[in-house]
């Protein structure tokens, strides 16, 4: 187990810059999630850490030791691939022991390690099977098992759940969290799914266009997004973004855009209302209801506003609804998209 330090990492493919200067430290035992839209460079960053890609500039340290030029096989990291990358011609047992054989570990030791990992991952009955004879979830667990037996310095996960169906994804997510609690290794996890990021991470790194937009704990990012990108990316349904003039008595100073999450928009009496919206679509989920509405701005299309209500709703399409925005949960962004904060340190993300 080890910590990781990235300094000024840049990666160019020809004339295209994929990583435009990444600085990041990850502490020993931390679970860090890289999240961002596709093409943001999160997978490239993971592969740079793994040693599968060379860097154009910058350096990488593991436990304080410089490894920038070290080959992937010598960095002592383990990786779980999106495709699982199980060796199709080897049994589960052989898949898990391959790395240990490569390290020249004694046969007895290999067997005991593989069996321990198999017990942990409920794979004991499948050790003699080939990957083709396993279900998607089992393959996924083999891929994790292959990493666990290594006892690596850092675990790297490249979108490991994206090939599973929704139900299995939720279950495996929980198992991963439990696993991290149990073995406590340093883990770096790449995903484009913000729910995975929120539920798994100690810290989330939001990447966009080859840069880090914000680093912080899940709730920090949710409650205090540093800029419009993070505000829009984290949270589902997305945060509502409104022009300042739409709200009465708004005194946010330099703010150019207001943001408010769907759960912070409340139906209210007409006198208290900030604005009146027309309901376009009602999604009843039983325990909660999403109202997709639009506020009349005079233009051909109204301004969209999503509202989350607890419980069930009797509203139908076309109803008019006066709503209020909770003042304590308003996010204010300036014309460049950065959050306006009393505390300027929090507002500035390294970009």
């Amino acid at each position, binding site marked *: 187990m080890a910590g990781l330090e990235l300094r000024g990492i840049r990666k160019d493919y020809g004339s295209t810059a994929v990583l435009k200067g990444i600085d990041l430290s990850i502490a020993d035992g931390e679970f860090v999630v890289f999240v961002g839209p596709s093409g943001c460079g999160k997978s490239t960053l993971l592969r740079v850490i793994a040693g599968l890609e060379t860097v154009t500039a910058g350096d990488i340290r593991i436990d304080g030791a410089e490894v920038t030029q070290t080959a992937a*096989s010598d960095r002592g990291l383990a990786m779980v691939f999106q495709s*699982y990358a199980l060796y199709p011609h080897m049994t589960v047992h052989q898949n898990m022991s391959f790395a240990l054989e490569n390290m020249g570990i004694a046969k007895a030791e290999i067997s005991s390690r593989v069996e321990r990992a198999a017990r942990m991952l409920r794979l004991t009955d499948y050790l003699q099977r080939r990957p083709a004879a396993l279900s998607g979830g089992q393959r996924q667990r083999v891929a994790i098992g292959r990493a666990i037996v290594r006892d690596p310095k850092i675990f790297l996960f490249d979108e490991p759940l994206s090939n599973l169906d929704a139900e299995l994804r939720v279950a495996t997510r929980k198992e991963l969290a439990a696993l991290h609690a149990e073995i406590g290794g340093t883990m770096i996890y790449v995903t484009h799914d913000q729910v995975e990021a929120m539920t798994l991470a100690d810290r989330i790194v939001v990447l966009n266009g080859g840069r880090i937009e914000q680093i912080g704990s899940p709730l920090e990012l949710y409650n205090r997004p540093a800029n419009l990108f993070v505000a829009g990316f984290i949270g589902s349904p997305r945060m509502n973004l409104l022009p300042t003039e739409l709200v009465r008595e708004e005194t946010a100073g330099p703010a150019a855009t207001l943001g408010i999450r769907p759960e912070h928009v409340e139906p209210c009496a007409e006198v208290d209302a900030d604005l009146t919206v027309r309901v376009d679509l009602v999604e009843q989920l039983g325990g909660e209801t999403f109202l997709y509405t639009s506020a009349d701005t005079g233009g051909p299309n109204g301004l969209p506003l999503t509202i989350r209500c607890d419980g069930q709703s009797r509203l139908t399409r076309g109803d008019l609804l006066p709503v209020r925005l909770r003042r304590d949960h308003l996010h204010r962004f300036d014309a460049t998209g950065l959050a306006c904060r009393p505390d300027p340190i929090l507002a500035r993300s390294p970009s």
Partner: protein
Amino acid sequence: MTDTMRSHGEPARGPSAAAAAVTTGGANALMRLTDPPMRAVQRLIGAARMPYVFLLPNLVFFGLFVFLPIGINIVFSVTGGTALFPAERPYVGAEHYARLLDCGSYLEAASCREDLFWRGVGNTLTFTVFQMVAMVLFSLITALVLNRPIRGRGFFRAVYFFPVLLSPVVVALIWKWILQRDGLLNAVLTTAGGEKILFFVDPGWAMFWSVFVSVWAHMGFYTLILLAGLQAIPRDVYEAAEMDGTRPWRVFHRITLPLLWPNLLVVLVLVLIRSVQVFDEVFVLTGGGPGTATMMVVQYIYTTAFANQVQNFGLAGAASVLLGVVLFVLTLIQLFLTRRRAS
């Protein structure tokens, strides 16, 4: 991913199962033997330079037996004498080329100084033209027939294909036995009331049977390529044509032929390249005879360098270089066509 995993996951099917079982046993022992030195090499030069290590053996063989000989051949072609070792051969410039190309009229082999070479060129051209037409025609017809909903398609495909695997010597001997003076074919001819024909004494018949035997031996291969092309044409294209009430000939002309054209082109060029190199079957079948009626360019090169009393490596080398240039151009055309087919 699942698909590729599966396809690579079960290589142990059919004939490769036994091979796989044998290799895993041997591979483990070999691994223990080869891994430590290779690991040491990797540590010494770094993983990034390992591809050169992997390329090396093949490259040594290529260098020794292909690249170096091509170079020597060019040296041969501009030096004279009978010595095999290039250093002992006096430089003669373009003399061999001049001798090969010295002709009264290129249409008349007898008017050339090296008339055997030109007879070879002429014979090869004749052979190539007839063989291309016959080969493409018959393999296309066979592929079209095999592409129909036929019972026992696998069997018939195998029937047409198996001569491809036979040794050219075997192929030639099989037919030589049938075509000889008292052979099966003459027996059939006389029973039908005809006269015996001495197939290998008549120049026309000798060339005919050279082409015939060559088509017999190789058409299965081209049939297979064309059949693969036909089967790659989606069924629904034909079904759409049928719904439109298109007549069969029009379907062939406007749908099958254009969609098969890339494969057909590849077949054409492959047949061309192989025809230009033809030697084995014809040599065993006719010995180049009667006289020089079926002597091909390659046979000329072979006899000039090896079989004659005086081994003239210079002349053979010059002829090889000329043939090599032709083959190189044809190969470029083929690569261009296959690349276009791939994209």
